């Protein structure tokens, strides 16, 4: 990016910050930067408390623990422990698909199961109720392979001892009962929820099962596929490639996972992790305690998929290396045909991203495969190590924002004028009203899969149908005069 363009981006940032009170502008300024090529990180602060009142996009620890990590485990009953709301708003929203199973018989992912706290539970404590809830879970759903207790805000405030209840009930029912301390006020975002969820998974499922005889015939190619939540079937599209290259996936975490697959954790020879942010903790544990190495990979878009397949194969013998080449050779023509079909329609288009987990960086080269460029990106709940990794993907002059507020996102979009904005449900409709094509990159906007070669075809189709939909040319009534290009407006004017 030329110096002038970069300067104008910096000016945009300054203009946007000027809409805040001074103290807030100073704080927020540290989370926003225009990236300079060669920098070792993105130059933004991260993993810090959100500022009250600015309309952060972030969620909470419960969302990270129940919504992301534990919720997809299909043969467990996950109790949203506390008042009704948290479980209600997260019911059936994440699209982590499961295979097999019958709802309420041996699969509970699409259900909202809660202790529905009432005032008396707050006053007298909820432990007795939890005990009874677990009894009733056993009565209603005897085929469950375990229970998780996902605690909501009040549980941690009233001094309940869910660990003691969990231990007692686990012994009583002879199955894991995992207490997950993911009260929404803990930490600064979803991120702490991931961490807590990983730790509980370690202590209540992985380590206790380390001595068990594996449920499969061990071999040199046993791997864990982790940090994939099977949104719209992502995990399956990834699994397809890994199996085809000759690997044996003994656990898929936690999209479409079963308890048995989690319990296989200590028995793998290698851990392959897609979403680093949400599951790196357990990788480190598996490495330290069981000596299992782990490898990050990226299955978005053919360029990164081929690189990743080769990097994974590098860790194994020639059989797997040949397998990787075979897989690439098999799918590359299809990927080429997808690119040939969509690149002419998407070439040169600029995307602005604001998501979480791995996507703000991982999808960059999938866009590049289609001739598109990510011109601005940021994370809801990243840490410094995510921003370091991001430098491997982004280009000079990319606008980077951490924990952006809705106000910032709106003004940045107006200032940058991207051809496509990709973020979440809360951002979707307001952005579309501004006239920008939009795709949700959390739920894949009810599409997917986007992982693997099969997913790339869907990704390409979806970006095209968003960017090139005829509706975006109809926004202005034909009798209205053309508007001059708007600079980012301060809030005062915009509100009028």
């Amino acid at each position, binding site marked *: 990016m030329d110096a002038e363009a970069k300067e104008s981006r910096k000016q945009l940032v300054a203009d946007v910050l000027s809409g805040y009170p001074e103290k807030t502008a100073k704080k927020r300024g540290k989370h926003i930067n225009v990236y300079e090529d060669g920098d070792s990180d993105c130059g933004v602060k991260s993993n810090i408390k959100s*500022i009250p009142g600015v309309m952060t996009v972030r969620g909470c620890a419960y969302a990270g623990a129940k919504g992301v990590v534990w919720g997809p485990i299909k043969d467990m009953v996950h109790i949203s422990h506390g*008042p009704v709301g948290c479980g209600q*708003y997260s019911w059936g929203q994440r699209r982590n698909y499961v295979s097999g199973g019958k*709802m309420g018989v041996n699969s509970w992912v699409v259900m909202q199961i809660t202790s529905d706290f009432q005032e008396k539970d707050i006053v007298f404590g909820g432990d007795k109720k939890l005990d009874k809830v677990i009894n009733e879970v056993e009565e209603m759903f005897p085929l469950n392979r375990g229970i998780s207790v996902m605690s909501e805000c009040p549980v941690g405030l009233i001094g309940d001892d869910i660990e003691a209840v969990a231990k007692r009930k686990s012994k009583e029912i002879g199955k894991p009962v995992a207490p997950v301390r993911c009260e929404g006020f803990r930490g600064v975002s979803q991120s702490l929820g991931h961490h807590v969820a990983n730790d509980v998974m370690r202590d209540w499922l992985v380590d206790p099962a380390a001595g068990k005889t594996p449920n499969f015939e061990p071999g040199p190619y046993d791997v864990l596929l982790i940090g994939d939540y099977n949104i*719209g079937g992502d995990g399956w599209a990834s699994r397809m490639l890994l199996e085809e290259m000759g690997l044996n996936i003994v656990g898929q975490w936690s999209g479409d996972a079963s308890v048995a697959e989690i319990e296989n954790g200590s028995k793998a020879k290698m851990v392959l992790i897609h979403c680093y942010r949400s599951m790196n903790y357990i990788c480190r544990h598996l490495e330290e305690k069981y000596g299992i190495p782990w490898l990050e990979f990226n299955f978005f878009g053919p360029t990164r998929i081929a690189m990743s397949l080769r990097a994974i194969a590098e860790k194994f013998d020639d059989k797997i290396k040949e397998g990787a080449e075979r897989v690439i050779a098999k799918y590359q023509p299809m990927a080429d045909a997808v690119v040939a079909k969509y690149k002419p329609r998407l070439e040169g288009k600029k995307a602005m991203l604001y998501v979480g987990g791995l996507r703000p960086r991982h999808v960059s080269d999938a866009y590049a495969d289609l001739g598109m460029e990510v011109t601005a990106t940021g994370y809801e709940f990243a840490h410094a190590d995510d921003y370091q990794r991001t430098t491997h993907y982004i280009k000079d002059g990319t606008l980077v924002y951490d924990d952006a507020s809705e106000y910032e996102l709106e003004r940045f979009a107006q200032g940058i004028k991207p051809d496509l904005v990709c973020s979440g449900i809360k951002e979707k409709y307001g952005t579309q009203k501004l006239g920008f094509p939009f795709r949700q990159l959390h739920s894949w906007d009810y599409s997917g899969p986007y992982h693997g070669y099969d997913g790339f075809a869907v990704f390409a189709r979806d970006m095209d149908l968003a960017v090139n939909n005829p509706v975006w040319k109809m926004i202005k009534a034909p009798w209205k005069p053309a508007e001059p290009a708007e600079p980012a407006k301060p809030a005062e004017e915009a509100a009028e």
Partner: protein
Amino acid sequence: MQQSADDIKDHARLFKTPEYQKLFENKSKFECPHTKEEVEKQSEYIDSWEYREKNLARTALTINPAKACQPLGALFAAVGFEKTLAFNHGSQGCTAYFRSHLARHFKEPCAAVSTSMTEDAAVFGGMNNLIDGLANAYTVYKPEVIAVSTTCIAEVIGDDLAAFIQNARAKGSVPEDFPIVTAHTPSFVGSHIVGYDAMVKGMLTMFWEGKERVPNEKINIIPGFDGYAVGNNRELKRMLGEFGIEATILSDVSDVFDTPTDGHYRMFEGGTPIAAVKDAVNAKATIGMQKYCSDKCLEFAASKGQQVASFHYPLGVGATDEFLMKLSEISGKPIPASLEKERGRLIDAMADSSAWLHGKTYAIFGDPDFVYAMARFVMELGGEPIHLVSTNGGKEWAKGVEELLKTSPYGAKAKVWPGKDLWAMRSLLATERTDYVIGSTYGKLFEKDLGIPIIRLTFPIFDRHHHHRFPVWGYTGAIRVMVTILDKILDKLDADTMESGISFDMVR
């Protein structure tokens, strides 16, 4: 090869290909699933009367409830006032959830801020969060009113909102006279409908308290929490216009959740003008369209000397008749001929379609007022309600519905289930099937599990678009409701007769 550039298969078709079917089979080896026999046995068991008894006897565990929590209702009520910013004091995740929940239903943005309380605030109280939050929200978003509701954390630790706001004013977060409305909305009490009532009452208290009422001829109407608010409130205003009644809708979200796409994002659009809220104390009467969303407000309005009346989400013939007669009685104006004609059109439509609707059986779930309304209209259509479930309906509600059922022979088979969740309802349906279920999107689980078609007629509707744009209130709204039911019945009849071709008629 399961995928191709020419025919891109997404999740709906991709995983049905033999390649993925094989993948699932291989994966199941690592899953240690239960045996087919065990699964079949339990599948049969959950459909049994024995299971039903246990399911209905649960006292601690809640499974698939059809209710949300108080601050969602408070947020919904707050944004229905002009340039009012919904402001949740508590953990930020709650606000993210409320905004997502409403956006998924309306397919519209939903603005609200949070004070982002974290662990330190849990220990020391959320005063600094509130002070900073008000300053930021006021500066960045320029509202004219801020409506504060609370989430669990603030309620459990007992934050003193009034004192905190006083301090915020003293510190200059907002001007001294800037209106800040408050509503305590603990999620462990009641549900979203109670939160709605609390926030509207907070508004009225803010702008009515201490005012001398100078009675006028206007009528206030509180619509209540309503997923069809966009269509319904506009229909309500149209009907009032036909009457020539000057009315104030207290919390009108119809333009808030229906802004145009024209290159501008309007964070504040529409909503009841604050001047109208202030003037509303002088109204002749206040009417609650949903009793359980407005009890506290009506009590307050009555204390100001106003007449009050409430309805159960007036839908269908009799309920609309009563609503219009009440308007006529309060205003002293006759029921307009135009609305009488609309009534005739509704009756005409019902007569035309009655043969297809007669004798159909229904299970209905949703908020208490909605279930009451639907049961009543279904009976007017010659249908028979069987299971009436409201997770947030109480004993008083159940008694009211039972009274209603006694008024019609079509109500004889119905049973009312206050406080029950949708897993309990599943048992009711598995043991005593109905032809259709009327409720929200969540009802599609019954369709999947038991093959009983779901007719989506209440909040939340996440998986179909734009229903909220059309009214279900009034005579015109009733036609829409009837057509929705009828389409489902006739689509099913077509689907059921497609294979043989017998009865697959061109005219129905």
